[in-house]
Protein backbone atom coordinates (compact mmCIF):
# COMPACT_ATOMS: atom_id res chain seq x y z
CA UNK A 1 0.00 0.00 0.00
CA UNK A 2 1.38 3.41 -0.99
CA UNK A 3 1.90 6.16 1.59
CA UNK A 4 -0.98 8.15 0.13
CA UNK A 5 -3.32 5.16 0.31
CA UNK A 6 -2.24 4.45 3.86
CA UNK A 7 -2.95 8.05 4.81
CA UNK A 8 -6.45 7.97 3.26
CA UNK A 9 -7.16 4.66 5.03
CA UNK A 10 -6.16 6.20 8.37
CA UNK A 11 -8.33 9.30 7.73
CA UNK A 12 -11.21 6.99 6.74
CA UNK A 13 -10.93 5.17 10.09
CA UNK A 14 -11.14 8.49 11.96
CA UNK A 15 -14.11 9.68 9.89
CA UNK A 16 -15.83 6.37 10.48
CA UNK A 17 -15.43 6.80 14.25
CA UNK A 18 -16.87 10.33 14.15
CA UNK A 19 -19.82 9.34 11.97
CA UNK A 20 -20.47 6.30 14.15
CA UNK A 21 -21.20 8.42 17.21
CA UNK A 22 -22.89 11.31 15.40
CA UNK A 23 -26.67 11.56 15.51
CA UNK A 24 -26.83 14.11 12.70
CA UNK A 25 -25.12 14.67 9.36
CA UNK A 26 -21.50 15.88 9.67
CA UNK A 27 -20.25 18.40 7.11
CA UNK A 28 -17.12 17.81 5.03
CA UNK A 29 -15.74 21.18 6.21
CA UNK A 30 -16.22 20.11 9.82
CA UNK A 31 -14.40 16.80 9.26
CA UNK A 32 -11.66 18.60 7.37
CA UNK A 33 -11.17 21.05 10.27
CA UNK A 34 -11.27 18.37 13.00
CA UNK A 35 -8.81 16.09 11.19
CA UNK A 36 -6.66 18.94 9.77
CA UNK A 37 -6.76 17.55 6.25
CA UNK A 38 -8.04 18.97 2.96
CA UNK A 39 -11.71 18.71 1.94
CA UNK A 40 -10.64 16.63 -1.09
CA UNK A 41 -8.96 14.07 1.19
CA UNK A 42 -12.10 13.89 3.37
CA UNK A 43 -14.31 13.42 0.29
CA UNK A 44 -12.08 10.68 -1.07
CA UNK A 45 -12.10 8.90 2.29
CA UNK A 46 -15.91 9.24 2.52
CA UNK A 47 -16.39 7.70 -0.93
CA UNK A 48 -14.07 4.84 -0.02
CA UNK A 49 -16.02 4.17 3.19
CA UNK A 50 -19.31 4.28 1.30
CA UNK A 51 -18.10 1.92 -1.42
CA UNK A 52 -16.81 -0.48 1.23
CA UNK A 53 -20.10 -0.42 3.21
CA UNK A 54 -22.25 -0.79 0.10
CA UNK A 55 -20.34 -3.85 -1.01
CA UNK A 56 -20.54 -5.96 2.14
CA UNK A 57 -22.24 -4.28 5.09
CA UNK A 58 -25.70 -3.73 6.54
CA UNK A 59 -25.21 0.00 6.61
CA UNK A 60 -24.15 2.75 4.27
CA UNK A 61 -23.33 6.46 4.19
CA UNK A 62 -25.95 8.96 3.10
CA UNK A 63 -25.30 12.52 1.97
CA UNK A 64 -28.12 14.62 3.46
CA UNK A 65 -28.67 18.19 4.67
CA UNK A 66 -25.18 19.25 3.62
CA UNK A 67 -23.42 16.47 5.54
CA UNK A 68 -22.71 12.75 5.78
CA UNK A 69 -24.39 10.29 8.09
CA UNK A 70 -24.30 6.57 8.77
CA UNK A 71 -27.57 4.82 7.93
CA UNK A 72 -28.84 1.29 7.59
CA UNK A 73 -28.97 -0.16 4.08
CA UNK A 74 -32.29 0.55 2.37
CA UNK A 75 -33.02 -3.12 1.61
CA UNK A 76 -32.87 -3.94 5.33
CA UNK A 77 -35.65 -1.63 6.52
CA UNK A 78 -38.02 -4.53 7.20
CA UNK A 79 -35.41 -6.25 9.39
CA UNK A 80 -35.00 -3.04 11.44
CA UNK A 81 -38.78 -2.64 11.78
CA UNK A 82 -39.22 -6.22 12.98
CA UNK A 83 -36.35 -5.79 15.45
CA UNK A 84 -37.93 -2.67 16.94
CA UNK A 85 -41.46 -1.74 15.92
CA UNK A 86 -40.96 1.86 17.06
CA UNK A 87 -38.70 2.32 14.03
CA UNK A 88 -41.69 1.56 11.84
CA UNK A 89 -43.17 4.95 12.71
CA UNK A 90 -42.50 7.41 10.00
CA UNK A 91 -43.75 10.89 9.42
CA UNK A 92 -46.89 10.59 7.33
CA UNK A 93 -47.93 13.62 5.34
CA UNK A 94 -51.24 14.13 3.58
CA UNK A 95 -51.48 15.22 -0.05
CA UNK A 96 -52.38 18.74 1.11
CA UNK A 97 -49.36 18.87 3.43
CA UNK A 98 -47.01 17.60 0.74
CA UNK A 99 -48.33 20.16 -1.74
CA UNK A 100 -47.99 23.00 0.78
CA UNK A 101 -44.49 21.83 1.66
CA UNK A 102 -43.54 21.82 -2.04
CA UNK A 103 -44.81 25.40 -2.41
CA UNK A 104 -42.80 26.53 0.62
CA UNK A 105 -39.68 24.71 -0.60
CA UNK A 106 -39.81 26.54 -3.93
CA UNK A 107 -41.19 29.91 -2.90
CA UNK A 108 -39.58 30.48 0.50
CA UNK A 109 -39.83 32.74 2.37
CA UNK A 110 -43.58 32.81 1.79
CA UNK A 111 -46.65 33.92 3.74
CA UNK A 112 -49.77 31.88 4.45
CA UNK A 113 -51.86 34.17 2.23
CA UNK A 114 -49.49 33.62 -0.69
CA UNK A 115 -49.69 29.83 -0.21
CA UNK A 116 -53.49 30.00 -0.05
CA UNK A 117 -53.61 32.11 -3.18
CA UNK A 118 -51.63 29.46 -5.05
CA UNK A 119 -53.56 26.50 -3.67
CA UNK A 120 -56.95 28.16 -3.80
CA UNK A 121 -57.88 26.74 -0.38
CA UNK A 122 -57.27 27.54 3.26
CA UNK A 123 -53.97 26.16 4.46
CA UNK A 124 -53.81 27.08 8.15
CA UNK A 125 -54.27 23.52 9.44
CA UNK A 126 -51.69 22.14 7.05
CA UNK A 127 -49.21 24.80 8.13
CA UNK A 128 -49.86 23.80 11.76
CA UNK A 129 -49.05 20.18 10.90
CA UNK A 130 -45.86 21.14 9.07
CA UNK A 131 -44.76 23.47 11.87
CA UNK A 132 -45.34 20.86 14.58
CA UNK A 133 -43.46 18.23 12.57
CA UNK A 134 -40.49 20.60 12.35
CA UNK A 135 -40.37 20.54 8.53
CA UNK A 136 -41.00 24.29 8.29
CA UNK A 137 -40.28 27.20 10.58
CA UNK A 138 -41.35 30.78 11.02
CA UNK A 139 -38.70 32.97 9.40
CA UNK A 140 -39.75 36.46 10.42
CA UNK A 141 -42.51 38.72 9.19
CA UNK A 142 -43.10 40.25 5.79
CA UNK A 143 -43.02 44.03 5.71
CA UNK A 144 -46.40 45.46 4.79
CA UNK A 145 -50.01 45.40 5.89
CA UNK A 146 -50.54 43.13 8.85
CA UNK A 147 -46.87 42.03 8.88
CA UNK A 148 -47.76 38.37 8.09
CA UNK A 149 -45.48 35.53 9.16
CA UNK A 150 -43.04 34.13 6.64
CA UNK A 151 -42.35 30.40 6.41
CA UNK A 152 -39.23 28.50 5.39
CA UNK A 153 -38.22 24.86 5.23
CA UNK A 154 -35.82 23.56 7.89
CA UNK A 155 -32.75 21.33 8.14
CA UNK A 156 -35.13 18.57 9.25
CA UNK A 157 -36.92 18.94 5.91
CA UNK A 158 -33.67 18.21 4.05
CA UNK A 159 -32.97 15.25 6.34
CA UNK A 160 -36.49 13.81 6.06
CA UNK A 161 -36.40 13.93 2.25
CA UNK A 162 -32.79 12.81 1.84
CA UNK A 163 -31.80 16.07 0.19
CA UNK A 164 -28.32 17.47 0.46
CA UNK A 165 -29.54 20.99 -0.36
CA UNK A 166 -32.54 22.71 -1.92
CA UNK A 167 -30.64 22.97 -5.18
CA UNK A 168 -31.15 19.21 -5.63
CA UNK A 169 -34.84 19.80 -6.26
CA UNK A 170 -35.83 19.98 -9.94
CA UNK A 171 -36.30 23.52 -11.24
CA UNK A 172 -39.82 24.92 -11.69
CA UNK A 173 -39.26 24.79 -15.45
CA UNK A 174 -38.45 21.08 -15.26
CA UNK A 175 -41.57 20.49 -13.19
CA UNK A 176 -43.73 22.36 -15.72
CA UNK A 177 -42.41 20.13 -18.48
CA UNK A 178 -43.31 16.92 -16.61
CA UNK A 179 -46.11 14.74 -18.06
CA UNK A 180 -49.68 14.91 -16.77
CA UNK A 181 -50.09 13.93 -13.16
CA UNK A 182 -52.88 11.76 -11.94
Amino acid at each position, binding site marked *: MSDSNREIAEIARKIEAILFISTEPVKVTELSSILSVSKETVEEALHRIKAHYDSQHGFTLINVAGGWQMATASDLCEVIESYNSSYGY*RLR*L*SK*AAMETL*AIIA*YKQPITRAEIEELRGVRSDKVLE*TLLSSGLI*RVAGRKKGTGSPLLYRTTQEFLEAFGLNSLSE*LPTEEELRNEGNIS
Partner: protein
Amino acid sequence: MTVKIDHDNFYDTLTTLVNLLESREIEASRVSVSEVVEVYADYLLRSDKMSLSEVAEFLARAAALILSKVRALFPQQTAEADEEQDAILVERDASVSEALYPYKVAAIFLEVLHYRRSKHYTRESGELRPFYEVGDLYFLASLWWNIIGNIAAKNRSSQQDIIDLMTEDNPEETIEARMDDIKNSLLELKEVTLLELLSDKASKSFVVSTIIALLELARLGIIYLKQRQQFGDIYVGLKS
Protein backbone atom coordinates in the same frame (compact mmCIF):
# COMPACT_ATOMS: atom_id res chain seq x y z
CA MET B 1 -46.27 30.24 34.63
CA THR B 2 -45.61 33.92 35.09
CA VAL B 3 -45.65 36.38 32.23
CA LYS B 4 -44.17 39.71 33.18
CA ILE B 5 -45.84 42.54 31.29
CA ASP B 6 -44.17 45.93 31.26
CA HIS B 7 -46.94 48.53 31.58
CA ASP B 8 -44.95 51.28 29.89
CA ASN B 9 -44.39 49.14 26.87
CA PHE B 10 -47.57 47.08 26.78
CA TYR B 11 -47.98 46.68 23.00
CA ASP B 12 -44.39 45.62 22.35
CA THR B 13 -44.64 43.07 25.16
CA LEU B 14 -47.93 41.71 23.81
CA THR B 15 -46.52 41.56 20.28
CA THR B 16 -43.48 39.68 21.59
CA LEU B 17 -45.75 37.24 23.41
CA VAL B 18 -47.83 36.62 20.26
CA ASN B 19 -44.65 36.21 18.18
CA LEU B 20 -43.29 33.65 20.66
CA LEU B 21 -46.56 31.72 20.48
CA GLU B 22 -46.73 31.82 16.70
CA SER B 23 -43.14 30.65 16.32
CA ARG B 24 -43.82 27.81 18.81
CA GLU B 25 -41.21 29.03 21.28
CA ILE B 26 -43.72 28.92 24.10
CA GLU B 27 -46.79 26.78 24.53
CA ALA B 28 -50.03 28.68 23.95
CA SER B 29 -51.94 26.40 26.31
CA ARG B 30 -49.87 27.74 29.20
CA VAL B 31 -50.67 31.39 28.60
CA SER B 32 -53.54 32.82 30.60
CA VAL B 33 -55.50 35.04 28.20
CA SER B 34 -57.63 36.37 31.07
CA GLU B 35 -54.51 37.55 32.89
CA VAL B 36 -53.32 39.39 29.79
CA VAL B 37 -56.75 41.04 29.45
CA GLU B 38 -56.70 42.00 33.14
CA VAL B 39 -53.29 43.61 32.71
CA TYR B 40 -54.63 45.48 29.68
CA ALA B 41 -57.64 46.70 31.64
CA ASP B 42 -55.28 47.89 34.35
CA TYR B 43 -53.18 49.62 31.69
CA LEU B 44 -56.32 51.30 30.29
CA LEU B 45 -57.26 52.61 33.72
CA ARG B 46 -53.80 54.07 34.23
CA SER B 47 -53.40 55.72 30.83
CA ASP B 48 -54.62 59.27 30.37
CA LYS B 49 -55.75 58.88 26.79
CA MET B 50 -56.17 55.99 24.43
CA SER B 51 -56.44 56.24 20.65
CA LEU B 52 -58.77 54.10 18.60
CA SER B 53 -55.84 52.58 16.68
CA GLU B 54 -54.23 51.48 19.95
CA VAL B 55 -57.43 49.71 21.00
CA ALA B 56 -57.67 48.10 17.53
CA GLU B 57 -54.04 46.98 17.82
CA PHE B 58 -54.80 45.37 21.18
CA LEU B 59 -57.89 43.60 19.82
CA ALA B 60 -55.92 42.22 16.85
CA ARG B 61 -53.13 40.94 19.12
CA ALA B 62 -55.59 39.52 21.65
CA ALA B 63 -57.44 37.72 18.82
CA ALA B 64 -54.16 36.16 17.64
CA LEU B 65 -53.46 35.12 21.24
CA ILE B 66 -56.89 33.50 21.61
CA LEU B 67 -56.54 31.71 18.25
CA SER B 68 -53.16 30.25 19.27
CA LYS B 69 -54.60 29.15 22.60
CA VAL B 70 -57.68 27.53 21.04
CA ARG B 71 -55.47 25.63 18.59
CA ALA B 72 -53.20 24.49 21.40
CA LEU B 73 -56.13 23.24 23.49
CA PHE B 74 -57.65 21.17 20.70
CA PRO B 75 -56.06 17.83 19.75
CA GLN B 76 -52.98 18.10 17.54
CA GLN B 77 -53.64 18.17 13.83
CA THR B 78 -52.85 14.83 12.26
CA ALA B 79 -52.23 13.83 8.69
CA GLU B 80 -55.73 12.28 8.66
CA ALA B 81 -57.30 15.57 9.69
CA ASP B 82 -55.63 17.27 6.77
CA GLU B 83 -57.74 15.08 4.47
CA GLU B 84 -60.57 17.58 4.97
CA GLN B 85 -58.51 20.18 3.22
CA ASP B 86 -57.56 17.54 0.66
CA ALA B 87 -61.22 16.99 -0.08
CA ILE B 88 -61.74 20.64 -0.89
CA LEU B 89 -58.60 20.44 -2.99
CA VAL B 90 -59.91 17.52 -5.04
CA GLU B 91 -63.20 19.36 -5.64
CA ARG B 92 -61.30 22.28 -6.99
CA ASP B 93 -58.85 20.24 -9.05
CA ALA B 94 -60.68 21.05 -12.26
CA SER B 95 -60.19 24.75 -11.75
CA VAL B 96 -56.69 24.55 -10.32
CA SER B 97 -54.69 27.29 -11.93
CA GLU B 98 -51.70 26.65 -14.10
CA ALA B 99 -49.58 28.27 -11.44
CA LEU B 100 -50.19 25.40 -9.02
CA TYR B 101 -49.28 22.66 -11.49
CA PRO B 102 -45.48 22.64 -10.92
CA TYR B 103 -46.00 22.35 -7.16
CA LYS B 104 -48.35 19.41 -7.54
CA VAL B 105 -45.58 17.69 -9.53
CA ALA B 106 -43.05 18.77 -6.89
CA ALA B 107 -45.28 17.25 -4.19
CA ILE B 108 -45.19 13.90 -6.01
CA PHE B 109 -41.41 14.24 -6.40
CA LEU B 110 -41.10 14.92 -2.67
CA GLU B 111 -43.26 11.90 -1.89
CA VAL B 112 -40.89 9.68 -3.89
CA LEU B 113 -37.86 11.20 -2.14
CA HIS B 114 -39.50 10.70 1.23
CA TYR B 115 -40.29 7.07 0.43
CA ARG B 116 -36.66 6.41 -0.57
CA ARG B 117 -35.30 8.20 2.47
CA SER B 118 -37.64 6.32 4.80
CA LYS B 119 -35.87 3.06 3.86
CA HIS B 120 -32.74 4.24 5.67
CA TYR B 121 -32.59 4.36 9.45
CA THR B 122 -30.10 6.53 11.30
CA ARG B 123 -28.93 6.77 14.88
CA GLU B 124 -31.42 8.71 16.98
CA SER B 125 -30.27 11.22 19.54
CA GLY B 126 -33.13 10.56 21.94
CA GLU B 127 -33.23 14.26 22.68
CA LEU B 128 -36.55 15.99 22.43
CA ARG B 129 -36.85 19.12 20.35
CA PRO B 130 -36.23 22.26 22.42
CA PHE B 131 -39.19 23.31 24.50
CA TYR B 132 -39.35 26.85 25.78
CA GLU B 133 -41.47 28.19 28.56
CA VAL B 134 -41.48 31.78 29.74
CA GLY B 135 -39.88 31.98 33.15
CA ASP B 136 -38.43 28.46 32.99
CA LEU B 137 -35.00 29.44 34.26
CA TYR B 138 -33.83 25.86 34.68
CA PHE B 139 -34.52 25.13 31.03
CA LEU B 140 -32.92 28.35 29.82
CA ALA B 141 -29.86 27.67 31.99
CA SER B 142 -29.57 24.14 30.58
CA LEU B 143 -29.86 25.48 27.05
CA TRP B 144 -27.19 28.08 27.81
CA TRP B 145 -24.73 25.45 29.08
CA ASN B 146 -25.44 23.23 26.06
CA ILE B 147 -24.62 26.12 23.74
CA ILE B 148 -21.44 26.95 25.67
CA GLY B 149 -20.48 23.25 25.65
CA ASN B 150 -20.97 23.00 21.87
CA ILE B 151 -18.96 26.16 21.17
CA ALA B 152 -16.19 24.99 23.50
CA ALA B 153 -16.08 21.58 21.80
CA LYS B 154 -15.94 23.14 18.34
CA ASN B 155 -13.19 25.60 19.32
CA ARG B 156 -11.40 23.00 21.41
CA SER B 157 -11.29 25.35 24.39
CA SER B 158 -12.64 25.15 27.92
CA GLN B 159 -16.14 26.33 28.85
CA GLN B 160 -14.57 28.97 31.11
CA ASP B 161 -12.55 30.40 28.18
CA ILE B 162 -15.75 30.81 26.18
CA ILE B 163 -17.54 32.50 29.07
CA ASP B 164 -14.57 34.84 29.62
CA LEU B 165 -14.63 35.70 25.93
CA MET B 166 -18.35 36.38 25.96
CA THR B 167 -18.33 38.50 29.10
CA GLU B 168 -15.17 40.42 28.25
CA ASP B 169 -17.20 43.51 27.46
CA ASN B 170 -20.36 43.20 29.50
CA PRO B 171 -22.98 45.19 27.56
CA GLU B 172 -25.01 45.90 30.69
CA GLU B 173 -22.02 47.53 32.33
CA THR B 174 -21.33 49.54 29.18
CA ILE B 175 -24.90 50.81 29.04
CA GLU B 176 -24.94 51.71 32.74
CA ALA B 177 -21.65 53.55 32.33
CA ARG B 178 -23.01 55.31 29.25
CA MET B 179 -26.14 56.35 31.18
CA ASP B 180 -23.89 57.92 33.85
CA ASP B 181 -21.81 59.70 31.18
CA ILE B 182 -24.93 61.15 29.55
CA LYS B 183 -26.33 62.29 32.91
CA ASN B 184 -23.00 63.98 33.77
CA SER B 185 -22.89 65.72 30.36
CA LEU B 186 -26.42 66.99 30.85
CA LEU B 187 -25.64 68.34 34.33
CA GLU B 188 -22.94 70.49 32.72
CA LEU B 189 -24.55 71.42 29.41
CA LYS B 190 -28.30 71.24 30.22
CA GLU B 191 -29.11 70.16 26.65
CA VAL B 192 -27.11 68.27 24.03
CA THR B 193 -27.94 66.87 20.62
CA LEU B 194 -27.75 63.24 19.65
CA LEU B 195 -25.05 64.06 17.10
CA GLU B 196 -22.94 65.70 19.83
CA LEU B 197 -23.34 62.63 22.02
CA LEU B 198 -22.18 60.39 19.19
CA SER B 199 -19.36 62.57 17.93
CA ASP B 200 -15.77 61.26 17.74
CA LYS B 201 -16.47 57.75 18.93
CA ALA B 202 -19.02 56.55 16.42
CA SER B 203 -18.14 52.85 16.65
CA LYS B 204 -21.05 50.46 16.22
CA SER B 205 -21.11 49.36 19.88
CA PHE B 206 -20.79 52.98 21.07
CA VAL B 207 -23.80 54.04 18.98
CA VAL B 208 -25.83 51.06 20.18
CA SER B 209 -24.97 51.60 23.86
CA THR B 210 -25.73 55.35 23.56
CA ILE B 211 -29.15 54.74 21.97
CA ILE B 212 -30.06 52.09 24.54
CA ALA B 213 -28.83 54.32 27.38
CA LEU B 214 -30.94 57.24 26.06
CA LEU B 215 -34.03 55.06 25.74
CA GLU B 216 -33.53 53.70 29.24
CA LEU B 217 -33.05 57.21 30.69
CA ALA B 218 -36.21 58.37 28.87
CA ARG B 219 -38.12 55.34 30.11
CA LEU B 220 -37.06 56.13 33.67
CA GLY B 221 -38.30 59.71 33.18
CA ILE B 222 -34.83 61.21 33.80
CA ILE B 223 -34.41 62.85 30.39
CA TYR B 224 -36.55 64.16 27.55
CA LEU B 225 -35.94 63.56 23.84
CA LYS B 226 -37.19 66.20 21.41
CA GLN B 227 -37.00 66.56 17.66
CA ARG B 228 -37.84 70.14 16.79
CA GLN B 229 -38.09 69.68 13.05
CA GLN B 230 -38.69 66.75 10.75
CA PHE B 231 -35.45 64.81 10.11
CA GLY B 232 -33.64 67.28 12.37
CA ASP B 233 -31.30 66.47 15.22
CA ILE B 234 -32.68 65.03 18.45
CA TYR B 235 -32.25 67.18 21.57
CA VAL B 236 -31.60 65.54 24.90
CA GLY B 237 -32.06 67.29 28.23
CA LEU B 238 -32.66 66.53 31.90
CA LYS B 239 -36.27 66.63 33.01
CA SER B 240 -36.74 69.25 35.67
